[in-house]
């Protein structure tokens, strides 16, 4: 248990990139329900997310939860730009979307997302998602940052 908990010296930040307030609130509530104290930070579209990441506003380690349909810059566009940025390219990203389109799915995995999660059901979704991501960050070594 010792080794597994080592990473918790610094709790993982959840960086939510989603234009929908309700989704953001739902994630917060899910964290609360699971009694997790991770920080949630939020951008409302891809452009804002890139700005926040580049300015260092998001403190590592972080996991990005990415919506695809957003104003200004959508998720796929964001992924492409992020992967080309050498200081951000390693980011661990889960796509969390209502888009069932195969095109989006393929495009997302082409940009090496950790998982493509379809927000299909309206009820237990976020609990499950947060549950999954909690397990993920407890088990998986996230990329080491310079600082």
């Amino acid at each position, binding site marked *: 248990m010792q080794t597994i908990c080592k990473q918790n010296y610094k709790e993982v930040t959840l960086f939510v990139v989603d234009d*929908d*307030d*309700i989704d953001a609130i739902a994630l917060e509530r899910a964290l609360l329900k699971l009694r997790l104290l991770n920080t949630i930070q939020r951008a409302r*579209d891809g452009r804002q997310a890139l700005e926040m990441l580049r300015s260092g506003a998001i403190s590592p380690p972080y996991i990005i939860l990415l919506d695809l349909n957003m104003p*200004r810059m959508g998720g796929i566009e964001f992924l492409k730009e992020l992967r080309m940025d050498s200081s951000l390219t390693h980011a661990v990203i889960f796509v969390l979307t209502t888009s069932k*389109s195969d095109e989006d799915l393929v495009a997302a995995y082409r940009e090496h997302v950790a998982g493509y999660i379809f927000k299909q059901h309206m009820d237990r979704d976020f609990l499950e998602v947060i549950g999954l991501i909690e397990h993920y960050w407890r088990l998986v070594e996230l990329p080491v940052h310079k600082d």
Partner: protein
Amino acid sequence: MSENDSDIKKTDDRFRQVVEAAPNAMVMVGKSGLIEMVNTQAEIIFGYNRSELLGQSIDCLLPERFRHHHPQHREVFFSDLQPRAMGVGRDLYGRRKDGSEFPVEVGLNPIETADGIKVLSAITDISARKRMEERFRQVVEAAPNAMVMVDKSGLIEMVNTQAEIIFGYSRSELLGQSIDNLLPERFRHHHPQHREVFFSDLQPRAMGVGRDLYGRRKDGSEFPVEVGLNPIETEDGIKVLSAITDISARVQASLKLAEHHEELERSNKELATFAYIASHDLKSPLRGIFQISQWIEEDLNNGNSASIPDHMNLLRGRLRRMEHLLDDLLAYSRAGRMEGGMSQVNLGVLAQNVFEMQAPPDGFILTLGDGLPTFTTLVTPLEQVLRNLFTNAIKHHDRSSGVLNLDWCTQDNHYYKFTVTDDGPGIPPQYHERVFGMFQTLRPRDEVEGSGMGLALIKKIVETYGGFIRVESDGIRGTSLHFTWPIRIEGRQPIANNLQTKL
């Protein structure tokens, strides 16, 4: 009888036998035109007995109308004795005993005999050939497309009525003229060359395969054609018979087909976009509503009723959003169809009315360019465009006061170009294309409530009437939206309307 006499007699007999055996009618006359010898063929084709002909004038074998000039012709022949065909270029006729006529071809040969120069005429009944020629003419005439026959030098020898119709020339204007007159001038230069190539390799074929061919009417106008070429052997050499089809209608039809195809592609693309959008943009408020209802339940179970008013507000917000999305989607699908009637409109007055209908916040004003046009047009869609542009400018303005301006100019003589300019936050160039997409917003809906359909709707309306829309902004301050609108809208049938009348 001397030996010499008997020799002459022998030669004479042989000559008579040769004449008798000839396959066509032979008639020998003396200088005065009296018949001295005929063969059986001559008896047959003219219907006389030999005895009836001998000693008679050759003129009895001619239709009366030609007899008058015959002695003259005969004199000319005797003055320059050479074998030749009679009456070159004229139609010759023989006359039978019963008075009926038939076309003939006559070869003339001077013959020296003991009692002077005689003329031996070989006469061929060419009725059959004439009939064939006539039949050929009739076939050409009856052809459903224009036919033009030219000789090796490109001079027109025969045309049919269809050719007269499609080129607008009368027959007499065409015969003997160069075929090049039927070509647009820019193609004439190369035509003799092409013709030579064709004559060097005589085969029926289509003209100018892979090239677009055009005919030129008498009035100088051009039309697309398809041309088939056929070499024809005639008695006076090889001719080319061209079958020319006016394919304007076909070209028009294929253009129309391409247009419909494009329209279909566009509407298919729209449908695909719609499906994508329906799965996200329309579903997301539903998901939201479902979630909020769960929170309300959870919070009530936990005895936390203080959060309920917030949840309810959020819930109603989502319902309103859903309603907006559906309304705007409907408006979009109807764009270009609900056009009402034509009426005269003073654009300055219209714009001012539309602006005031928006109930703009205090501090917002509309200024108008000089001399905005008054013209007759479909007011409803034009009003819809202006309304959406004004709504956008006001809704997305980042200050409490602002100035909107409507200006205009004419473009290409057929369109007005209207420009709505605001002094809002502008749209960065990288989004200029995206803003015209369906359900595209540049700010989260939770910040600025909007369906993201406004510009998509305007674009669809403007393009329905053949115009275009373009955004101009440096993304720092101010946006100009330029759109064109036809000056005369009648006669231009929007595609969406056509579809509707068909349904």
